[in-house]
């Protein structure tokens, strides 16, 4: 194209941007039914979602008004009445918090709900459900696995630990070689669930932070730092690559980053299950906590049916698979979108060994419930941890102290929402 044509083309595009009605992305047909969908994500992702929405509109005859927004905007818009019908790629804390304030729809009675949730591991719905009602559907999943450097382990003749008792020995050996075992940021949840514990009693009425299982898990967790000197903070990517931390527990998504950040060790590392806890009957429990992003519908939406149709279509294996594939082609392996949908997962380009481990670890996933006042639990769990690790405080006493504080807040919140106090 000559320069003149190029310039003319550019000017045309600018003029078009003033005259086009971008609220109708699909063909010139306008639809009787329209829903507005908001998302907080990057530009590239937006383009892909946009294309997919056009397909949806064509297939289901419902117009989709897609908008990119910044985090925090959604809530304000809902207040002012200018909010969307559907929000996708939201964080797991949102649906339940909005639901108790009656801002989000319950999905249990929606058409085909039972079918839809079959495609997800049931535990992924835990943090999206409260008092038996599910308020959102999962999009992505994340849970920890263990990464280790095959070459280093071979060289030093070390064994990959299967249970926590093995880990203690391993740490000795590693430290003798000036290396470290890389702990997971939320090791507490793993240990808690492996010991058969839970976060709450009675649907969020009481915190079980000072229960026996919790104390056991907490002890085990803090011991790593107080007695074994595991690093409280470490940069996994860099240290794993240099071999300083040849074994670590991290979100499985890290493997995508590793592939791009440290391609030279591509064949030298592997994923495996997180160390388990031996139960009384001799079997091993490999439980881990899980999370991910979600999509939900606001109560103020004008068209429940169309909104549900969209939500259902969006989280379905077919759509998620399409989205994930396109994103990976567009941005590369490290941008891999970790789908929650099991059918979509099967379509992803994991190598066989990785896919096996992930499927197996996922079997053991346990979701953490969201209840009114949840924010207090993570906060004070952290406070308790710091107190014990930095000032050598007594575990039982500290946990008792913070549990009381947490329970008070849980009670306040329950009263606020008429759920019956403690």
């Amino acid at each position, binding site marked *: 194209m000559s320069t003149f044509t190029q310039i003319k083309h*550019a000017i045309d*595009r*600018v003029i078009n*941007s*003033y005259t*086009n009605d*971008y609220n109708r992305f699909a063909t010139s047909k306008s639809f009787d039914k329209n829903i507005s969908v*908001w998302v*907080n*994500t*990057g*530009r*590239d*992702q*937006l*383009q892909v979602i946009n294309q997919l929405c056009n397909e949806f509109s064509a297939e289901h005859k419902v117009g989709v008004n897609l*908008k*990119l*927004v*910044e985090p*925090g*905007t959604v809530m*304000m*818009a809902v*207040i*002012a*009445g*200018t909010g969307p019908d559907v929000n996708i790629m939201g964080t797991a804390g949102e649906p339940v918090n909005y639901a108790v304030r009656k801002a989000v729809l319950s999905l249990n009675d929606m058409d085909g709900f039972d079918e839809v949730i079959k495609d997800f591991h049931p535990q992924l719905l835990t943090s999206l459900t409260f008092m038996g009602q599910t308020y959102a559907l999962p999009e992505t999943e994340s849970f920890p696995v263990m990464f280790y450097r095959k070459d280093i382990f071979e060289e030093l003749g070390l064994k990959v630990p299967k249970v926590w008792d093995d880990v203690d020995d391993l740490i000795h050996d590693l430290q003798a070689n000036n290396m470290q075992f890389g702990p997971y940021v939320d090791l507490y949840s793993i240990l808690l669930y492996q010991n058969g514990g839970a976060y709450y009693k009675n649907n969020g009425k009481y915190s079980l932070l000072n229960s026996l299982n919790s104390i056991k898990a907490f002890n085990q967790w803090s011991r790593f730092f107080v007695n074994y000197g595991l690093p409280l903070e470490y*940069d996994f*990517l*860099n240290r794993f690559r240099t071999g300083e931390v040849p074994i670590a527990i991290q979100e499985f998504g890290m493997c995508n*980053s590793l592939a*791009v*950040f440290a391609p030279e060790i591509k064949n030298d590392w592997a994923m495996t299950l997180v160390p388990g806890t031996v139960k009384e009957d001799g079997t091993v429990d490999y439980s881990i906590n899980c999370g991910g992003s979600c999509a939900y519908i606001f109560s103020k939406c004008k068209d429940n049916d169309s909104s549900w149709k969209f939500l259902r279509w969006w989280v379905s294996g077919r759509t998620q698979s399409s989205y994930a594939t396109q994103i990976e082609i567009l*941005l*590369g392996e*490290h*941008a891999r979108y970790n789908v929650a949908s099991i059918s979509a997962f099967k379509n992803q380009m994991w190598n066989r060994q990785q896919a096996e481990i992930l499927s197996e670890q996922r079997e053991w996933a346990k979701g953490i419930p969201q209840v009114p006042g949840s924010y207090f639990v993570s906060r004070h769990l952290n406070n308790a941890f710091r107190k014990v690790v930095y000032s050598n405080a007594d575990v039982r006493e500290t946990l008792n102290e913070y549990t009381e504080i947490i329970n008070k807040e849980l009670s306040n919140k329950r009263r606020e929402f008429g759920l019956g106090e403690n």
Partner: protein
Amino acid sequence: MAAHNILSNKSRYARSVFGNVMNFLILLIVAAFMVIPMIYTVSNAFKPFNELFIFPPKLIVMNPTFDNFLGINSILRQSWIPLVRYILNSLLVTGIGVLGQIILASLAGFVLSKEQFPGRDFLNNIVVLSLMFSGGVTAIPNYIIFAKLGMINSHLSLILPAFCNSLGLFLMKQFIDQMVPMSLLEAARIDGAGEFRIYFNVVMPLCKPAWLTLLIFSFQSLWSTAGGTYIYDEQLRTLPSALSTMIYGGIARAGVSAAVALLLVLPPTITFILSQSNVLQTMASSGMKE
């Protein structure tokens, strides 16, 4: 101005050479430290992907590349809104906003400074007080007001609040207080000039440093306003808003994010460097009398 001389007039009394040198060195060290974030931003923008995640991060890039900027270009090319449109949006918002702010602030500043009328002190106090209420909680009432006035998803949400910026009013008023003598105004009135004439032909020319400063400050601030909380329509987005949406693309776009960060920081910094002397002169009159 004679004032400049006192600062370079070294012959007042013995200022020890040692004192001067120490003075300079201390300042240099402090300044060098302050510039580190800038160097870091510039450096980051040119880092290839694998250098971005090295921890601890290196201050100077080892293998500089333009890839990140090319990345911005390719993302924008795919967008259904051309880059020029974003720039036009920013220009529109900034142009109208700056113009309006200067006019409104000087009109009000002039009268508040030189005229006596009922309610004047009250208004003066409100403006000072308004500088003190912390922003967090007013976000929601603000949003609702905008919504009720139909300003959401419109450029007005950025322009109108800029018109009533209290810092601007403050600057204009203080400058007029000190630099425009009453005698001049009285002479103009005796000559039969109406208020508007006085404002336009007498006050504004005298206040040039003030509204130049205001121009620079408000340009800086408006140009870097993303307004992402109020504007969602793609075709209405300002340049910073469009650029910053690239940052949400996750680690795949980390390089591009670094380049974007640099681009967003450049205009305000350059405007400041170029306009330094004017700014300083206005700030000289920014004190409070009482």
